[in-house]
Every structure is written in structure tokens, then in C-alpha cells.
């Protein structure tokens, strides 16, 4: 299993393709809470997979002022087709070239399989990781951990 960046670490900045002709960098989202969801692949063969689940739950993240980003090693065209097919309304970033470089910075790359781990990071408004979670690759972690983390952050800031 990978060793994820731990809470208290500054989230490494990155700039990745979000559509075939647009990039998105983490620093552009400074001032917002950000959930990074690294996942192995688009088109996982179950409905209600992790990304479609988060898409459905997104309004709950927004209540905590959090934006969610998905990251896998799939290319931007693949993400585009996948997002269109499943009506995904949040950005899916392509950690495609050099492959998995961002996942590696976060300790969330599975070298043996050449895909991202199923890993979650919650980043505060100042760009600091305040929660991270590594799920067994075959287990969709759901959203309860993310929402608990956002809730506790909100309570701390009160």
C-alpha cells in the first residue's frame, strides 16, 4: 500500500488537463476547500461507482464550501466521454503525462498497476491537507469520511 501525504502537509500544487483544451491547477482553487479523489479508472463496471456517487452527493460537499476534483491516469478525451455518459458535473483531471506524476507526489500511485490508488484528500482554504484516506483499491469508500472531515473542519473553524 502507498504512503499518502499526511494531514498537516501542504498540498502539492499541480496543473493538469481537465478537458482536451483546458488545464486546471490546484492553486486556482485557493480559498476554497477542495476534495481530491484519486481513483483507478473511468468506466468502472458498476453503476453508482465512486465518481457517479460523488456526482450525486456533490450538493452536500458544496454545503461545506468544498469543490471536488477527480484524478486518474485516464486521458482528457476519455474523461470527457466518461463525464458526458454519466452526467458528471465536477472536474475530472488527467494525470496522464507524465503518467501518474501528481498521484506520485501525493503518495497515491500504484506503481505495480500503473494507476492511481483509491485515495481521498481534503484540503483547507489555505491549501493544507487536513484529512486523507487510502481505501483498499476494490472498495469504494463512499462519502461519509469526507463529510465527517468537512464537518469537523467546520467545527474547528467556528
Amino acid at each position, binding site marked *: 500500500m502507498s504512503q499518502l501525504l499526511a494531514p498537516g502537509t501542504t498540498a502539492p500544487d499541480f496543473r493538469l488537463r481537465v478537458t482536451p483544451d483546458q488545464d486546471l491547477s490546484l492553486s486556482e482553487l485557493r480559498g476554497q476547500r477542495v476534495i481530491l479523489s484519486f481513483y483507478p479508472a473511468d468506466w468502472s463496471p458498476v*453503476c*453508482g*461507482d465512486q465518481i457517479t*456517487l460523488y456526482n*450525486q452527493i456533490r450538493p452536500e460537499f458544496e454545503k461545506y464550501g468544498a469543490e471536488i476534483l477527480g484524478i486518474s491516469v485516464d486521458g482528457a478525451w476519455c474523461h470527457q466521454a466518461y463525464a458526458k455518459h454519466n*452526467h458528471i458535473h465536477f472536474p475530472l483531471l488527467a494525470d496522464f503525462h507524465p503518467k501518474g506524476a501528481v498521484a506520485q507526489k501525493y503518495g497515491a500511485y500504484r506503481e505495480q498497476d500503473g494507476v492511481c490508488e483509491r485515495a481521498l484528500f481534503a484540503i483547507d482554504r489555505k491549501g493544507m491537507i487536513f484529512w486523507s484516506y487510502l481505501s483498499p483499491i476494490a472498495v469504494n*469508500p463512499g462519502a461519509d469520511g469526507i463529510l465527517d472531515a468537512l464537518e469537523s473542519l467546520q467545527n474547528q473553524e467556528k
Partner: protein
Amino acid sequence: MSLLRVPVNSSDHVQGPENAPVTLLEYGDYECPHCGAMHPVVQRVQRCFSSRLGLAYRHFPLTEIHEYAEAAAETAEYAGFYGRFWEAHDMLFQNQDRLGLPLFLAIVRYFELSEQGLRDALAHGTFADKVRRDFLTGVRSGVNGTPTFFINNLRYDGPASYEALVGAIAAQLEYAPTAA
């Protein structure tokens, strides 16, 4: 291991005795093919344990990918308001390939309930709050897709098969079932 945050209670639809030693809770979506495939499996599991197992169902419609999931859930709740939840539930899963208003109205007609009543309930979202509440309890409990099962408040992460579910429930009962 994810824990059910809101235990099964009187606002839930439950089949089987109130004091059953094990309760199997399903979070499901009437348009989800995996839930549809599991429906007869869940019924077999119920037969296996009969009165020792309670079955509860909560809605988790993935409306972004399933056009009719929300209306199907509200139709089940409408029928449930008149005491016909489980029959409507079974019919929705058994007719999953033709979900849509004509089916929903046909189900209501079958129970001799008001079709206009259903149309009004769907138009006004009369049961939307109940469906939303179910969904949110699932979100906070680690529901990670559909179907997600909880056995006595613990998320079941095992295979979606008859044998595996029976094994997990039997382990809760600390009792080997005698009939399948």
C-alpha cells in the same frame, strides 16, 4: 468499516418481525440493474431465515444517471402511504425494464388507488422529502453505490451473492441455517 448512522426505525419500511435478531437493510435504486438482479436474491435470503430476519429498504436514487429512479421511489412511497409499499417495491423491481409513468400508474391502478393522486404526489414532490432523507442517511453511513447492504448497522462489503449474504447473516445469528 462503515456504521449505519440512523438505525432502522419506525419511519422505515420493514418486513419481518420487529424484534428479529438480524436486520438486513438495503439502500437501493429501482433503476439500478444490480439492485434489480439482487432483488430475487434478497427474497431468497428472506426465505432462508424467515422470522429471524427483518428486511428494511431505503431509497438511494442515482438521479444523475437514472431518469426514472426518483419517480419510482416516490411511487413506492405513495403506495406505502396506503400500506402497499412492499408490493409496489416488488413490482418496480420485477418490471425494471419498463419504468416510467405508465408503469407507475398501472401499479397504482392494480392497488385500486387514485391515479390522479399519484400524478399529484409526483408533481408536488409529496414524498420527495422522505426519499431525500433516506438518501442522506445513506450518504452519511458510507453507502457507496447501489445496492449497499447493512447487516445490523454494519456495512456489508462482501460479494453480492446469495451464499455470501447468507453466510454473513448466519455469522450474526451465530447459527447455521438449516434450509436454503
